[in-house]
């Protein structure tokens, strides 16, 4: 039985001339996912505003399930469905339908009601779609009538989707919602700052969803924190990589920089100045890798460095727009989202972080512009920061989260 995965693309109807670019970006991403999860050969074709992925040869059910799950994490995909091929013959379609319903029964997913919806790409096929619906639906209904299966044209529990393509007919019983949004890379390239907490991975996810490809940066405060913190970040990136088509992580050694800043500044400015220099390094990195924006996990008012005044201060050192997709999120909303994207368990691992070690008793809530600007002007630390980028450890991840050697 030949298998085909149908993918529908989100927000494509909003696009005009650049539609081809979107399709190209998402096709490339899908190819990477298939290569990572499926040993089978495949071919992607554009079928009537949808992407049809033809899988040839025997398809392993477990691999197929993993692939479908991975595709639901590809930004820009609206739905994913798995279809099975058969001859373009109503009786044969009916029999395949019966098989698929039997399979559902085995899996405990047998519906109470159903309907058939068919489309005909191959207009030479002599039967109209209402006729296909009635004929194939009838065969299935008669077979399962004794089990209490009903036909419901308005609110069916299950829709049997039939597509008549040039080569075969394709039947599908299950549709999986994708993450939607825009294909990765179509909205630009961003440097995303990760801290190891709950917020920044969610911020990254949201920017992936809106089509930003991202390079991650982590400021590693060794020897104030240990290697376990680095391992945690690598683990987080490996999860976030599943929402990206290619992922890079820069681990910037930052302990020496923090030492210099900490010794030179008023203690209540420690946190905000650390952040300012992190933003500065993120900009230097963005220049190097040609990224247009910086993304952080800031949520308005969550901690002292996330007040309007202090965010505005920090932004003064940035030559690029600082994206803060979580500004309007409550902590609970962020936690729910982190659970959904699979970063929660890693984020809450209780490793010491440098923030708490350096946290002054009373961090400044409304930083003084004069002091801040003067400090930044007098302490460029350019050489130190450049060296930190040069000394960065770089990790690359595949779409399935595996680290590329």
């Amino acid at each position, binding site marked *: 039985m030949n298998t085909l995965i149908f993918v529908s693309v989100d927000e494509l109807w909003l696009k005009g001339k650049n539609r081809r670019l979107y399709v190209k970006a998402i096709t490339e991403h899908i190819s990477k996912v298939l290569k990572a999860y499926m040993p089978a050969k495949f071919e992607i074709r554009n079928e009537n505003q949808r992407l049809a992925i033809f899988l040839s040869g025997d398809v392993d059910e477990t691999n197929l399930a993993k692939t479908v799950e991975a595709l639901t994490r590809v930004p820009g995909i609206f739905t994913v469905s798995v279809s099975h091929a058969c001859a373009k013959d109503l009786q044969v379609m009916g029999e395949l339908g019966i098989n698929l319903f039997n399979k559902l029964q085995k899996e405990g997913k047998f519906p109470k009601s159903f309907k058939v919806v068919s489309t005909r790409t191959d207009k030479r096929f002599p039967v109209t779609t209402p006729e296909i619906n009635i004929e194939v639906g009838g065969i299935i209904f008669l077979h399962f009538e004794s089990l209490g299966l009903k036909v419901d044209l308005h609110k069916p529990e299950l829709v049997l989707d039939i597509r008549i393509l040039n080569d075969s007919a394709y039947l599908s019983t299950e549709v999986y919602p994708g993450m939607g949004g825009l294909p990765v890379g179509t909205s630009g390239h961003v440097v995303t700052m990760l801290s190891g907490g709950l917020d920044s991975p969610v911020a990254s996810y949201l920017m992936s969803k809106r089509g930003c490809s991202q390079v991650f940066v982590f400021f590693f405060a060794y*020897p*104030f924190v*240990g290697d376990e913190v680095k391992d945690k970040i690598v683990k987080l990136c490996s999860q976030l990589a599943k929402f990206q088509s290619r992922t890079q992580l820069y681990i910037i050694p930052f302990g020496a920089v*923090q030492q210099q800043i900490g*010794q030179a500044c008023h203690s209540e400015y420690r946190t905000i100045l650390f952040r300012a220099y992190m933003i500065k390094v993120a900009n230097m990195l963005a220049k190097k890798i040609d990224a247009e924006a910086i993304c952080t996990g800031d949520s308005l008012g969550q901690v002292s460095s996330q007040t309007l005044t202090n965010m505005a201060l920090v932004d003064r050192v940035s030559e690029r727009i600082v994206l803060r997709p979580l500004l309007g999120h409550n902590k609970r909303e962020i936690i729910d989202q982190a659970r959904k994207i699979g970063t929660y368990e890693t984020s809450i691992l209780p490793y*010491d972080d440098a923030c708490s070690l350096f946290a002054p*008793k*009373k961090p400044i809530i409304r930083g003084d512009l004069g002091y801040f600007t003067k400090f930044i002007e007098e302490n460029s630390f350019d050489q130190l920061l450049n060296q930190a980028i040069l000394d960065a450890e770089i990790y690359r991840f595949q779409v399935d989260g595996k680290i590329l050697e």
Partner: protein
Amino acid sequence: MIYLDHAASTPLLSEACSQLCQSLQNDFANPSSAHRFGSSLSKRIDKIRSYFLDLLKLDQEEFDFIFTASATESNNMVILNQAVGSSIFLNQAFHSSLKAPVINNDYKLNYLPRDGSHHLDAQWLKTCLNKDSTGLLLLEWVNGQSGIIENIAEMASLAKQLAPHLWIHVDAVQGFGKIPFPMNSLKFIDSIAISGHKIGGPKGIAGLYFRRHKKLRPLIWGGGQENGMRSGTQAFPLISSFMTAAKIMHADREQSVQVVSHLQCALRSRLEKIQSISFPVASAQTSPYIQMLMIEGASSDILLRHLEVHEIIMSSTSACSSKLKGFNPVFADFGIEEQNHKNILRVSFSASNTIEEVEIFSRALEKILCDLKRLTRKA
């Protein structure tokens, strides 16, 4: 690099290393094989066995000695030989290879308390042992965390006097080859565990002394090697290198103790001057090889990493419990308040360390403490 973590593991002595390498090359036969090549290795193993028994002047009629893969295995073998439900006496500060097999199996646990000077309280034995008592008394000759040397002769003789049927096992890992074994304790002791890699021998080789008349069942069954007590192909190269290390350690012991005592003295008098540093078990008799420090206001994790930047390698606690965060029962047993459990460092020497290294370490520690204080000041 300055290496001050010899209690965790110490480098191979060069003679032990050459012995190991040449033996790995040349002595590749299986000692259990029938041919002469194999049987000659088997005979040499028996000679090495006699060497280890002679080291403690043990009568071969009375005692046997077998090679194991680790002191953890040796300790486990004795503990797991106790019948389910037996009483086992041990102390909270003991190494995890003594605690874990007791805690994770169906034994009656009895924790030995410490007295005012941090030594195991021998008198306490009187309150819980009598002539009908059976089970196992576990003793650590030298504690790996604090360096405290226990009076095992006093403990063992009193225990045997009170409870003649009690099995007495001594973990001698941190003292063997380093300080003189209290020979007067031997007539009360039933088994002793030692290890290769703590004395400049290779990892993966250790030993267990035990009384022949005591019924000990093997942990590992198979081809009946080690007189049926420990099956598995005997690792001749490891065994021979272990002996080389033991010979050198014993030959040099007095001189090494002098060197190391000198280092410890220098370290103490140097660090004494730093206000935030104290020595938690100063009132106890301790091994010159191990020095425990408490550093108020600085977390040991952070200090260890800063020292690492200066290429100074050491630990806060035994390598087998270094993953523990927060409350540490070992420290609590020495009367250290929980709030200070994250402030402990352990310096452990070998005779290869120098007074210059002690000075470099002390200076580095002083500077790190000073920098950290400035950097993490709260106001």
